[in-house]
């Protein structure tokens, strides 16, 4: 979860690194408004030149890191449709879903912006938007947990089972219960379109959170 520098401009590597960094930050960021973690548990490093609060709970960090590490190969192959951070209430029913919808733009190129500074700006905007999303969301009921879902395209799951990126960190098929939300409301947060990727974040929120 490094801050990006201009030096590591490896085109194959950079976007994905940068991308995984963003959701990682995003995921962590989400906890703040979601009040999943005690507020003391966050540090303030900076990503994309934005000061962000980060979790400093080592196991949580590890989990997030591992998760994203596993998502990375999928991202590289453009097999990921959505990465969803689901906030579940005590009954393990989803109350909020932060959906990162990832698509490749129709014309993939990195020619125009060799420094990817444009992408960086967009990502920064993204993160900024996340940090203020609590303003548009209702408060969550106490005692929430979270889980990360990855919606893959086509047969990506099968490949994933074959190649476990990290040992003892397997992907499992999500329960319908985790995925399905009752009476969802959609709140678009941010859309970014760049030459290398198109990503949008929206929140699906249960209409009546406390019930």
């Amino acid at each position, binding site marked *: 979860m490094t801050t990006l520098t201009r030096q590591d401009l490896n085109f194959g590597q950079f976007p994905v690194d940068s991308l995984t960094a963003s959701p990682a930050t995003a995921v962590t960021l989400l906890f703040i408004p979601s009040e999943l973690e005690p507020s003391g548990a966050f540090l303030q490093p900076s990503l994309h030149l934005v000061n962000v609060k980060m979790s400093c709970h080592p196991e949580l960090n590890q989990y997030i890191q591992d998760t994203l590490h596993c998502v990375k190969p999928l991202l590289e192959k453009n097999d990921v449709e959505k990465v969803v951070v689901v906030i579940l209430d005590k009954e393990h029913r989803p109350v909020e879903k932060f959906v990162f919808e990832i698509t490749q733009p129709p014309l993939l190129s990195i020619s*125009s912006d060799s420094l990817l500074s444009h992408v960086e700006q967009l990502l920064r905007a993204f993160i900024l938007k996340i940090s203020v999303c609590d303003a548009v969301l209702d408060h969550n009921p106490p005692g929430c947990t979270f889980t990360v879902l990855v919606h893959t395209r086509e047969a990506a799951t099968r490949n994933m089972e074959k190649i476990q990126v990290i040992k003892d960190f397997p992907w499992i098929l999500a329960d319908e219960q985790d995925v399905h939300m009752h009476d969802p409301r959609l709140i*678009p947060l*941010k*859309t970014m379109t760049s030459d290398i990727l*198109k990503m949008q974040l929206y929140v699906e929120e249960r209409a009546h959170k406390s019930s």
Partner: protein
Amino acid sequence: MRRGGWRKRAENDGWEKWGGYMAAKVQKLEEQFRSDATLQKDGTSSTIFSGVAIYVNGYTDPSAEELRKLMMLHGGQYHVYYSRSKTTHIIATNLPNAKIKELKGEKVIRPEWIVESIKAGRLLSCIPYQLYSKQSNMQKGLNFTPACKAEEPGPGPSSVVKQLNNRVNHIIKKIETENEVKVNGMNSWNEEDANNDFNFMELEQIFPGRKQNGIPHHRDNAAIFNGHTPSSNGALKTQDCLVPMGHSFASRLSPDFAQGEEQAEKSSTDFRDCVVHLSQQSTRNTDAVRNPHRTNSFSLSSLHSNTKVNGAHHSAVQGPSSTKSTSSIPTLSKAAPSVPSKPSDCGFISDFYSRSRLHHISMWKCELTEFVSALQRQSSGVFPGREKLKKMKTGRSALVVTDTGNMSVLSSPRHQSCIMHVDMDCFFVSVGIRNRPDLKGKPVAVTSNRGTGRAPLRPGANPQLEWQYYQNKILKGKAEIPDSSLWENQDSAQANGIDSVLSKAEIASCSYEARQVGIRNGMFFGQAKQLCPSLQAVPYDFHAYKEVARTMYETLASYTHNIEAVSCDEALVDITEILAETRLTPDEFANAVRMEIKDQTKCAASVGIGSNILLARMATRKAKPDGQYHLKPEEVDDFIRGQLVSNLPGVGRSMESKLTSLGIKTCGDLQYMTMAKLQKEFGPKTGQMLYRFCRGLDDRPVRTEKERKSISAEINYGIRFTQPKEAEAFLLNLSEEIQRRLEAAGMKGKRLTLKVMVRKPGAPVETAKFGGHGICDNITRTVTLDQATDSAKIIGKATLNMFHTMKLNISDMRGVGIQVNQLVPTNPNPSACPTRPSVQSSHFPGGSHSVLDLFQVQKAKKSTEEEHKEVFVAAMDLEISSASRNCTFMPSFSTHLTSSVNPVTSKAESSGKWNGLHSPISLKSRLNLSIEVPSPSQLDQSVLEALPPDLREQIEQACAGQQGEQHGDKRKEPVNGCNTGILPQPVGTVLLQIPEPQESNSDAGINVIALPAFSQVDPEVFAALPAELQKELKAAYDQRQRQGENAAHQQLATASVPKNLLRQLKPAAVKEKKRNKKKNPISSPKKIQSPLKNKLLTSPVKTLPGACGSPQKLIDGFLKHEGPASEKPLGELSASTSGVPGLSSSQPEPAGCRRPPAPNLAGAVEFSDVKTLLKEWITTISDPMEEDILQVVKYCTDLIEEKDLEKLDLVIKYMKRLMQQSVESVWNMAFDFILDNVQVVLQQTYGSTLKVT
């Protein structure tokens, strides 16, 4: 010992040579055979098979040994070893696949041929006994006439040719001696039969050519033909026909023909194809029917140009054939000289059209439309039929007045419009059998096939595969070519087992008796014959059809001239007036009309009457056959609910299957669908149409006139080329055909489109339908010429250019078409110009036509009257505005817009934004505007074709008009600093996008209003511009300064423009790439339309009339168009912002890497633009138009699809704010409507709905 002996022998007989032993052996066997033969000869012997050498392959019945004996007895040769050069026939009953593949045009004949030839006592044609051949059966290419042989310089490697010649000679000999050819086993051969007559005609047509070529065999051939009884359907005959045809073709097509045998051979394969073209001019032109470019049908229907040529030819050729089912040759040969001998392929093309029923049908429609409008022009207001009816009525009512009283008067709903739909019952059939009472009441089909409905299977053809493909296409909307390996087994099985397939001749029309057993129009004859073995085939009789159609229309015209010619057998008549005048009930009137038609034509007509066109048509369905039905208003609801959706006009197979998948069968089901849902499924226009139609609503007027928009000639039947030369020659001929048509129509065209159908990769080479195009890809190229032309030379040259850029595999070509658009009348005299005001749809304030007309008048005067200049300029302006306005409609109808339209649309888009400003603009600025009329090259043809006809018409008219003007007049405008910029682009550019001129166009547009202050121009950018551009820009700035005095007028415009411009210019400069991306905006014009419309009348154009000093009419027109005209500047603005900063950005991208356009609202992509647009829309209009709302919904849906929810959210919120603030409750409703629609789409896409707070 043995070795020694071997060597010894080798010395004397040359066995040391490779293959020497075999040669010797074969020789010996032959000797043996001969000696055996002499021994065998006795009373039963004959010389039937002299010249025939057979080789028996595999198991046969009778056995090989027996065959050998038979050949001995009857003067033939029997080869134990196959010799390519000497063996003439291979005898086999069954060949393994591998052997079939090895065949190269050899004749593989079933043994029955020999047996039956002996039985018949003469050599029968081997063709019906053919097992299969490499070439398709009709494509017997290697048939040389003796004349050809004479030209061949000596023996060559390909003695096959020679042998074939021999064989042909034999056959000819036989025919000469025997007048009656009794052909056995011909039944499986009907495909060929069907073509027989054509061949004859073909032949006759070519005869003049032959004479010219001075070929001595003409007489012989003619003699042969005369010897035939007309009814004999012999393959022999076909073969003979092919001979001269082939020859004349060869001599035409390949000049190298006589140069050597190799070449001769090659060309023989070439002309084989040509022969096929020729002989395949059947009228059952399925191709056109299944032509995927249905949108093109307008062009088809609008051709009638070739009337004269074809017509003349036709009456000659068809005349005789109309009375007998087969053509009688003597008459034909008489008719032949009347056919002008044309160079090369001409005969083919005109012949194709003379036999294409679709061509005729469309031609007639044009003629009849013409006929009706001619009647209207000459109308004296007296209708004999009507008078008669009146008399009849009064006479009758005098009789019955006491008991019925006013009943009939009351019962007829006079207040309501009443449309009558007259439709002849199975037109082709009833015309075909009106003189054949023996066929009445029997299942009859009009088709070109008159055999049993079977045709020989041509190897390589894969009907199942094609069928599967089309099936997929219908079901899924798109299709992949099925894996051919799937079919391989079946295929080979078929090749081995069945040697004939069902005839693919299409049924053009069938009688009701035939329909009862499930036969349908358009069905393949073979299939139909299976369904109904007693089905009678009746040939086409185009002459009679025309006559009957004419009679029917004359009958109708005796009542009213308010007739819309739907087709040759179908007309819509507005009888409201008649009913009011004659006081007849609709039923009475219908009865009278039907009686009269039946009286006059001996054909039955059905009549449906309803309050609108739709209902009238539906009623006709119920009325059929030979009946009438009046759909009374009170019955409509019940009636329509029971109707199948497929009965609705505009619901074709694909839509029907789509509807079926939605569980909709009847209109009643359809009524349960909401408009929104329908529009989502089928697009806004179609959705609305369905919504209305299924409720019986239809507001289309009865249109009596229609205008020609394009002229085209397209042939996709029998196209098989082997050499580029042929294809080129064919294109040139097609160009000539186009020239003829243009001349006949008195038009010149500027825009050329070449359409080529190419075999889809993976599709079988041999098509299921003989000569058909099979599964094809369509490739089109369009070019805009310097000037409108009707010269075949120019057209041909341009076409060839386009053709070469396609880089096609010649042998894969399956269809070729040339279309000419942007027609301008040849005669510039406005009074003679056929521009007629067309019926305009309700969305469009009329006037552009009248303005155009006026414009033309102005133009005529122009040269002498200099003071009219300003008027002229103004008029020109209107034109442009209407053009650009039209252009803006494109996006809503086609999502795959190519960017070539974009310059236009972007202009329009910004003109939309400009709406609020609509400042008066000086004439001078307008003058410049006129320059940047969307050049026709910017209009994408496919898009244009996808437009509804009325729109298209407007666009094309505007363009055509503009085109005509541009040359003559623009140069005369000294005011204009950028004349050069507008000059049409060079012809050389073949692709759609022709950047330079348009670029300069936009620059030209800039120079007055849209330029930023000079200080704001980035010097670097400026320096990067090409020199001419710089010059132009400079000139523009100069000009602007000169226009200082006009500043007062322009204040408003310029004040806001630079600001706007800056905003756009900057991002454009910074992120050129991004800009680029967004540069495909597709404007959705309706958006613009309504603010525009609102403003039309309010716009302060008072300055103009003074300047113009023109007649009132012009001012009216001008006023109407002032809106769009004043919007222009913005158009340029956006064009300039995209065009100026980065030249590269306006360079044409190669067509391949074009990105799908970003979702946009009336061209606005950026949120701020969208906002401006929305705000203007909502604040300026009190009553939003439905189309506008739908446009917004479409935009929102696009955003969802584009996964740009953020913007969607913002747009929705913005609209919510504005609309709910609005005092008009309509806006509230509009918002709810939009939101509902968006939520539905969201629900489907994301499974959740937007949270709107």
